[in-house]
């Protein structure tokens, strides 16, 4: 008999690795350089529904740290924390909406958007001159890849749930 702790740890590890891989598969490249990935948030969201908020946030933070080591867009201490562990930790919020997965997806990705948005504002405020308004730029830039990502995640999660593909009650 497996202890639940070991089982959960194994699930976190594999889920995070899967998310990292999905994040590398680009479905569509946006004109301004950003790209939409193959629903890299889906495994993390499914784990949140299955194991609750705590495990979801945990996995999100681990994912963020690994993304940080791999991608390495490291510019500023506050930006690191906001853009990596915190932004992806927000995905765990999906665990609050176990019965309404679509709402959960929207909430989780909105949380991620907020973290990137604040990071953009804070980070650019450090460099941008006082007269420039960084808020609008940050919102547009981050929205341009989070919204399509949200659409993809909703479609795929809806399809998965409709077919009763994954047991959310372990």
């Amino acid at each position, binding site marked *: 008999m*497996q*202890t639940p*702790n*070991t*089982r959960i*740890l*194994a*699930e*976190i*590890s*594999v*889920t*995070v*690795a*899967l998310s*990292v*891989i*999905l994040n*590398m*598969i680009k*479905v*569509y490249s946006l004109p301004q350089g950003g790209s939409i990935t*193959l*629903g890299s948030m*889906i*495994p993390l969201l*499914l784990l949140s529904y299955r194991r609750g908020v705590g495990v979801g946030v*945990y*996995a999100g933070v*681990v*994912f963020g*740290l*690994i993304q*940080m*080591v*791999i*991608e*390495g*867009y*490291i*510019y*500023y*201490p506050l930006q*690191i924390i906001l853009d990596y562990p915190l932004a992806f930790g927000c995905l765990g919020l999906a665990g609050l909406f176990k019965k309404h997965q679509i709402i959960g997806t929207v909430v989780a990705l909105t949380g991620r958007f907020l973290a990137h948005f604040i990071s953009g504002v804070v980070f650019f405020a450090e*460099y*941008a*001159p006082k*007269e*420039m308004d960084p808020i609008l730029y940050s919102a547009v830039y981050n929205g341009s890849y989070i919204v399509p990502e949200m659409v*993809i995640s909703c*479609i*795929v999660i809806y*399809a998965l749930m409709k077919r009763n*593909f*994954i047991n959310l009650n372990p």
Partner: protein
Amino acid sequence: MSLLEGLRFSRGSSPLHDLDPRVKFFMTCILFVAAILFHEFSMLLIIFLSQIPIIIIGKIIKEWLKTLKGGLLLATMIFVTNLVSLYFFRGQQLTLDMLEYSLALTFRFLIMITSFSIFFLTTSPDKLSLALEKAQVPYEFNFAFITSIRFVPVIAEEAQSIMDAQKSRGLELEKGRFLSRIRNYIPILLPLIVNSIRRSLELAEAMESRAFGASKKRTNLYELEMSVLDYLVLGFTLLILIIIVYVRFFMQTFMPMFPPVRIL
């Protein structure tokens, strides 16, 4: 394999790679603080140039240039927006010291990128985990971090073979409009998720069979120990810190290199 391209963790060997991760992190922080403390172009340039020998010792020139390329767009943006706004808000004239100020901000940014790449490019995930453990981070977190990294290449290979298999059955990935493209990717996503669930079960069984979590007190095969070189580097870094603080707070360094001569 295009997928595995981004997975190369630094597995090189150099004096910098062998340095204790805690010392290295301290060094990174000092470089970072130095960049924040100064805002004269001359000082920032000196700090930037002093980072280059470290990079050469660490044999990470290629990776570092790649990082710089990634940050180039932002660096240019910082330079241009600062220059343009100074131009318009200081009576529509361009002077040499404006140019210097913008360049200084750009170099501060480059120093920050470099100091963090020095740490992350030369610290393997294993050492990072050991350092985290020494910093009292819970072992479960460490374990999840390290196992995930270990699983990334495995799952990448699997994703690649699933993609190849579906392509050989006639699945077209690079065609169609937005929605049909997403639909085309579903036959790849589903087997990947199913396989991953199976894999997590196997992993849990393997962990159990090796008595994971059975003993409360864990020991490591490799222990982090400070060598003589580590202490030397630590002492040197502390010396640099003292010099930086002295120069910044007890010497008058607020002198621009260029006089405010109008050039445009």
